[in-house]
């Protein structure tokens, strides 16, 4: 269980994390979703005590991180898979962590096996690892102490699709055993595949949170016509909440039949009409985090 309450971090006048409040529960995989620079990593660093918070609190299993007597045995942390000494072998990285936690050496071999790193790979220096191998090593280090909570920052980065599936199964198994998982990603697809609960952050603020099903259901209806603005106007005239999305689609907060009827009444021929599902979540993600999207800013600049 991770409880974050009104967490705020200011750098001068800039609020990197702004009144962030959410809970990651045991038995669930909580996905922390946001574009680059939204405040995900800063929030995670505050939770594990590497960055001091300006205000607010974060507790793990009811205690602050600094008060955990042997943190590795209760919380597995992977903040940056590349943050390892390039001159150490993969096995040595785990040896050091195991020694610090007071674990038997046999645990290192078990974990290497669990993340599918071979003996030969483990004997290589981390400087020669691919990003995917570093992620596996980082996961092994996080799991080493048999923790109750996992905190993983962009763990799927550098993994191929098979690797992402492997990670999903691993985290699923961990959560099913009663563990708490908090993982971040800037890719909606990864979060959709892995997470049960989703917390969306943009510009340091939480913009939406809920279970995956809730957020998907909130996606509404995706509808498309040759004339996007006419369709939006028609649906709004019919009293529906509708807004234009990317590449000519319109997203409406209403059922399929209602939307179809409204378009028919306005005499607009539709080219597509379906439940929004993940497209809705994606639209939501892009819309909610629009201000922090650099593309958006540059696109506006180009248009002007």
């Amino acid at each position, binding site marked *: 269980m991770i409880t974050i309450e009104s967490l705020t971090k200011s750098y001068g006048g800039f609020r990197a994390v702004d009144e962030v409040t959410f809970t990651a529960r045991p038995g669930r995989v909580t996905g922390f979703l946001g574009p680059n620079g939204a405040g995900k990593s800063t929030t995670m660093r505050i939770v594990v005590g590497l960055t001091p918070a300006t205000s607010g609190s974060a507790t793990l299993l009811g205690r602050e991180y600094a008060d955990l007597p042997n943190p590795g045995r209760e919380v597995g942390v992977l903040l940056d898979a590349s*943050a390892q000494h390039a001159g150490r072998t993969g096995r040595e990285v785990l040896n050091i962590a195991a020694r*610090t936690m007071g674990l038997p050496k046999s645990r290192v071999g078990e974990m290497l096996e669990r993340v599918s790193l071979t003996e030969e790979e483990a004997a290589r220096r981390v400087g020669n690892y691919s990003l995917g191998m570093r992620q596996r090593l980082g996961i092994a280090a996080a799991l080493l102490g048999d923790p109750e909570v996992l905190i993983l920052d962009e763990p799927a980065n550098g993994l191929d699709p098979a690797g992402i599936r492997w990670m999903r199964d691993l985290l699923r198994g961990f959560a099913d055993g009663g563990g708490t998982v908090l993982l971040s990603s800037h890719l909606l697809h990864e979060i959709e595949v892995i997470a049960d609960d989703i917390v969306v952050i943009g510009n340091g603020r939480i913009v939406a949170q*809920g*279970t995956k099903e809730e957020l998907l259901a*909130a996606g509404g209806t995706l509808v498309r016509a040759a004339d996007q603005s006419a369709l939006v106007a028609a649906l709004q005239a019919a009293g529906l909440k509708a807004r234009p999305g990317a590449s000519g689609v319109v997203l409406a907060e209403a059922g399929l039949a209602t939307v179809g009827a409204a378009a028919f009444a306005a005499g607009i021929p539709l080219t597509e009409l379906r439940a929004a599902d993940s497209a809705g979540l994606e639209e939501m993600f892009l819309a909610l985090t629009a201000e922090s999207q650099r593309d958006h800013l540059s696109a506006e600049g180009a248009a002007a």
Partner: protein
Amino acid sequence: MTATTMETTPVTTARPERSVPAPIPFTRLLDVEWRKMFDTRTGFWLLTGVGILSLIATAATMIFGNRETLTYDDFAAAVGIPVTVILPVLGALSVSSEWGQRTSLTTFTLVPSRGRVIQAKFLVIVAVGLASLAVAFGAGAIGNLVNAGIAGVTPDWNISLGTLSQIALADEINMLMAFMLGVLLRNSPGAVVGYFVYALVLPGVSGALADAQQWWMDNAGWFDLRTATIPLYDAGVTGEQWAQLGVSTLIWLVLPLAIGLRMLMRSEVK
């Protein structure tokens, strides 16, 4: 868009209650930090380098020195060079590489108390300094014995135990200067270059200044730590020289170390 809460989320399984693990004992931190000194390629070769250079220095002293008159002092001076120049780099890297290689992320998540980690590093550095001095003095002793055997003279052990511990103190000050630079700068190239400026460049500058200025020549020991440590290599250090050593150590070692530690404790680990 509706923002919903997760209040309704059912908890699928509850883990069996687990006992809180025992705190990490300090001896374990010492063990881990000791290991981290040597388990990288850099650490391994720096230490091996000190060993090899001690042997080379000993051999060179025998080959090029006048065998009839060589004493233990000559050997100790020769093996002292790799210990003064190379070993402190290890001291600087033990702290700075945590930031340079970003292993601090792992180190301080496994041990949230930064003070304990730095304390452990400090003690390990001092121990490594003593251990390698023992190796270097040992190499010198072997050289002295072998040389005496070859030349057919009685080996001359003209260094007292007191002077040996003074030399050890001087070398430990060098080690800790490098350690201090590692703590203060938290940047490996900066700390290593800084140490070499201190160990190799400043003595020349101070010497030139002393040549030009009588006042500096008389008083440099109060301000220049390198000048203040030179008397430690000979017997008969005066009370004033000890006082000079104390003052300049305070200015150049203790004070910057205190500032560096304060910054390190508060800094953000990225």
